[in-house]
């Protein structure tokens, strides 16, 4: 949109920074404030900002709605998969301690993968919500 020159220039500067901050919140979540849910919302907000400023049509060509729907299911699958791996290794559902040789490393890996699943699902769900409410 040409008549939103300032907004589009600033959005081009801001959108990569928002994505970077989302990834920071995602992978710093087990040491500081943050985690999968917040990171997913922040990451999706960059796509929503793109959709608001450049139009929903362009956003649909950037992120395919079908792929986003598949990703939303994939995040849940990742979450449940980590739990099932705990069962297969002879423990309870979501037993992080058995994921690696020492229980501490196993907990790190488990939390990281589960938060990644949550983040992917939340980001995809937010983008799907935006698609559902935006005018075609």
């Amino acid at each position: 949109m040409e008549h939103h020159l300032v907004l589009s220039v600033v959005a081009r500067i801001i959108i990569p920074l928002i994505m970077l901050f989302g990834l920071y919140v995602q992978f710093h979540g087990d040491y500081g404030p943050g985690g999968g849910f917040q990171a997913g919302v922040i990451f999706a907000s960059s796509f929503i900002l793109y959709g608001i400023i450049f139009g929903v049509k362009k956003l649909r060509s950037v992120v395919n709605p079908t792929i986003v729907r598949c990703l939303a299911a994939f995040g849940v699958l990742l979450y449940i998969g980590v739990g099932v791996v705990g069962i297969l290794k002879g423990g309870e559902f979501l037993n992080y301690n058995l994921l690696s040789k020492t229980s501490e490393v196993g907990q790190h890996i488990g939390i990281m993968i589960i938060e990644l699943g949550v983040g992917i699902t939340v980001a995809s769900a937010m983008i799907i919500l935006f698609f559902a409410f935006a005018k075609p």
Partner: protein
Amino acid sequence: MSNIDIISGALIVAGSLSIVVGLLGVYRMPDFFTRLHAASVIDTLGTILILSGLILYQGFNLVSVKLLLILIFILITTPTAAHALAKSALHGKIKPILGDD
């Protein structure tokens, strides 16, 4: 209390005062554009003063670098938000009050 503590405290107090001034402006100004103008005082002067006071108080470490990044982010985004508000108000046929009225 060292000199830097006094300077940073003075900066934080000045920032808080400018936020109070901006709030009074938002409350008392007559129309949309002057209110927006008063609100931008909060966004720019208040946050710059408070955040620079906090940076001085912290000294140079990871927290102050993060505060500096927040400051840069606010300096980019809030004028854009004010611009978008003013532009959409003009498109929505809101006329500013001029001196002759």
